[in-house]
């Protein structure tokens, strides 16, 4: 499992002889977990540094679980989760429910005409569009906009946000500790009882988000193509924010079907870290989080990416600055070699001592930046090990490619040094330690390990795997994985401007 920045790699262990807050034993005393009858796992970690707590709800569903034809759905649902429930955000839910059903019916009619294979009738379409708008306007009269977040914010919620990744969805914020019960009511409510109000306006918001992150960003555009090319079958290759034609057609009904399937107790871990006493609060938390429906653990996405046997490339020619990236398929976090990939990333890319910095940036002076990282874009399923470089003015993507390949060949041909390997292990250990003194980071890491390994303790046992990495492992893995037939690369070549730059 890669030590991502927000996890800061929580790992305990080998900082020899250190007592106090940093060892597994101390955490075992401070952490209480309970699996509720509905399958939901509650995890509480006591850290009374200040009268605050942070939480994360970790949903074991993400972009890979978008149904076929509905890319962007998991993320769309994440937005919906801020719209309130039957109890908050509405003036009259009974009436609103009826109005929302009318909105769905109006949308269905509009979409059916729009997608008519014999061609849409413009008059009819205009009429249906007007009816759709009228239905939305009517439903809107029952809404108290953003009341859910308003209540959270005016009660001191800080860092309020959510994230949809390829493999999981996270909801989180921090709050003063005397709001713990209020938080429990809010969070369990929105998990159990969400209402898809203002869905179609929110869909427009998500389209704007796509325009900001992807369409209007050269690297965003490139990465979307890069992943789509690297993967022919597995949904890691599918646009996570959604292909425009698909995400623009998602309906509220589809979003709620997704909710019904994936937001069940067995698929959720809720972690709380801070100034809370587990014994005191557990009964209260259990009362609220029992509201989340029980349900079978949803079946896993089972598509396996077929082994790549042909090198693939994406060549973008546009008037933006050059860039180069390549990626190789690697196994998931469960593979026994998982820590070996971390070692390679560290030795190749971590800081000014790294091979790619010293070779491409310092010595050859062809790149402003050069890194390798993994897993990308997710870790639950087999991801990529990627290398990228930003060319200095006057240098090309092809030069980046050749220089990166030289470094990769060195990795295969000669052992890394004892010092390099030792440095990786020392840094991994220290990074893990550093992450232990932050409530939100701890909550996120504990929830992730609890989900991915079924046991948060694995967070602390990771260092055992780090310690076992050998020089031979690195050569073996590099030789197997970093081969041309397993490679996808993408680059931007700067195209000469047609006319003078600036205004037309």
């Amino acid at each position, binding site marked *: 499992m890669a030590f991502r920045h927000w996890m800061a790699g929580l790992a305990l262990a080998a900082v020899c002889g250190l007592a106090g807050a940093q060892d597994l034993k101390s955490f075992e005393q401070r952490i209480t977990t309970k699996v509720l009858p509905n399958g939901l796992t509650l995890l509480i970690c006591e850290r009374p540094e200040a009268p605050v707590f942070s939480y994360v709800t970790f949903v074991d569903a993400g972009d890979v679980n978008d149904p076929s034809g509905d890319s962007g759905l998991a993320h769309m649902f994440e937005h919906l989760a801020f719209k309130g429930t039957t109890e908050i955000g509405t003036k009259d839910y009974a009436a609103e429910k009826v109005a929302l059903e009318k909105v769905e019916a109006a949308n269905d009619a509009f979409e059916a005409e729009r997608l008519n294979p014999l061609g849409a009738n413009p008059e009819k379409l205009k009429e249906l569009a007007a009816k759709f708008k009228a239905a939305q306007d009517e439903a809107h009269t029952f809404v108290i906009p953003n009341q859910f977040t308003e209540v959270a914010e*005016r009660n001191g*919620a800080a860092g309020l946000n959510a994230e949809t990744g390829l493999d999981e969805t996270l909801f989180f914020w921090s709050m003063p500790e*005397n709001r713990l019960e209020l938080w429990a009511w809010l969070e369990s409510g929105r998990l159990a009882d969400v209402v898809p109000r203002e869905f179609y306006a929110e869909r427009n918001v998500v389209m704007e988000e796509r325009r900001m992150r992807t369409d209007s960003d050269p690297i965003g555009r490139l990465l979307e193509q890069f992943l789509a090319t690297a993967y022919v079958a597995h949904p890691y290759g599918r646009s996570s*924010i959604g292909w425009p034609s698909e995400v623009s057609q998602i309906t509220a009904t589809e979003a709620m079907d997704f909710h019904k399937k994936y937001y069940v107790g067995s698929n959720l871990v809720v972690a709380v870290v801070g100034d809370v006493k587990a014994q005191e609060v557990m009964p209260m938390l259990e009362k609220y989080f029992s509201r989340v429906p029980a349900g079978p653990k949803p079946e896993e996405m089972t598509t396996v990416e077929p082994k790549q046997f042909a090198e693939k490339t994406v060549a973008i020619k546009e008037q933006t600055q050059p860039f180069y990236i390549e990626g190789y398929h690697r196994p998931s976090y469960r593979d026994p070699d998982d820590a070996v990939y971390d070692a390679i990333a560290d030795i190749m890319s971590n800081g000014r*001592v790294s091979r790619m910095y010293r070779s491409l940036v310092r010595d050859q002076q062809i790149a402003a930046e050069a890194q390798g990282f993994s897993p990308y874009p997710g870790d639950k399923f087999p991801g990529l090990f990627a290398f990228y470089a930003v060319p200095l003015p*006057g240098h090309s993507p092809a030069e980046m490619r050749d220089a990166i390949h030289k470094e990769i060949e060195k990795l295969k041909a000669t052992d890394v040094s004892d010092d390099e390997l030792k440095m990786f292990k*020392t840094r991994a250990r220290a990074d893990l330690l550093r992450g232990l003194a932050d409530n939100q980071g701890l909550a996120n890491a504990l929830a992730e390990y609890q989900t991915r390994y079924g046991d948060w303790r694995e967070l602390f046992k990771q260092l055992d795997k780090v310690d076992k990495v050998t020089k031979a492992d690195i050569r073996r893995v590099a030789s197997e994985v970093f081969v041309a037939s397993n490679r996808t690369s993408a680059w931007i070549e700067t195209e000469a401007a047609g006319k003078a730059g600036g205004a037309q």
Partner: protein
Amino acid sequence: MRAASMFVVGLMAVIAPVIADAQQSKPWEKIPVPPLREFKPQMPKRVELKNGIVIFLQEDHELPFVSGSVLIPGGARDEDAAKTGLVSLYGETWRTSGTAKMDGDAMDDFLEARAAHIETTGGENSTGLSWDSLKGDSDQVFTLALDLLLHPKFNAEKLQLAQQQAAAGIVRRNDDESGIAGREAAKLVYGPASPYARQAELATIGAVKLADFEAWHRRTIGGKLIIAVSGDFDGAAMEAKLRAAFELLPAAKAEPQRHESFSEPKPALYFVDKEDVNQSNVQIVGLGTDRRNADVPTLAVMNDILGGGFSSRLFQKIRTEMGDAYAVGGGISFNYDHPGIFNVEVLTKSVSTVDATKAALDEIAGLTTRPFTEEELKRSQEDILNGFLFRYDTKEKVLAEQVRLEFFGYPADYLEKYEAAIPRVTLADLSAAAKKYIHPDKLAVLVVGNRQEIKPGLDELKLGAVHTLDVTIPGAPKGGPGDGGAQQQ
């Protein structure tokens, strides 16, 4: 890679007044909220040496690390305009050069093997040096850091490296729409030659010499240094060590008085054409104020109402109601020692550029025409006050705040006074502040976007002639990376 977050961190969204429905039952109001236990954040120990240097010590024994920093007055705003970028290059090269005893590369090897760091930075108003390590290495690392602080040996090769990296950033700065918007907005408010808006260019960074670094170091190292150390150390021993290191330095020289003048931007509609985007970045800007202004607590409340979160007027209108933006927000910013910027920002698809801009201008004008409500006031006060704890909930945050206040010459209890002022803000205060500070006719409107796609066109805004800005990067190759770049395969 994380795909979409809910909203952009840092943008405050403001909502239109919430219509409180007397009939809505509010079950959350019945949930018990016990009093918060008393919490006195641990303040660092402040030591002022005879020479004027100030030291802060913040013990924290939770984890076995020690970290420290030295803040040095004097930054990019003071550099020679012909060498804009000098201080940033200095911040980079200082550390990578190292000292006579240990050059930068050897320092990298030594530190990284121990998972330790020493870094230097060059910023707008200061330069700095920081260090961190595991407790067991802290003496060694501190000795190295002190040597680098006082006796750097600037290296020509490392200067060249830093110049190359800066050049790479300059030639690609127009690839990113929000980068263009941010830079041009600052230039509109402060003026393109202002130290707060001017840009490093290929020519200015190329003009920087090693001698410039030596001169900069000499000029600033004698200033009023602020040293801050936190972590797992013994307070008395650390204090003694720092005294020994710093008390024999000569008396600290005060920074020369700054004489700066600021004025409102030229109100007009400005445009930058960017062909490869399908979304416009709209910035509506004016001059802000500084933190010493007695109106700041009132303005903070007004900011929350205008653009500070999901409930804010801007967010509610343009994102929630119109669905025309994911990123929207803004307000008046207050810097510590010079006026900040008033800024409202909207990112919206090309075809809704005019609609969204109109709506944003309408919300700004609405601050003076649509009265603030008790509900808005109360909500914003609660937003600010109930979350205030998060400004000092860690020992690190408390230390950073004290360093900041010391640097800018603010009283040590600034945060407490600020917090106490928020509940005293009234509706009358808000109206008066809006009348005094919000002048829609004095704002500049900047749109960065795709001219061909923006329909209806910007003349629909009726803000006068559109002034198109040229953002061509001086000296950058026209549409190509240079020799043989685009052709190699």
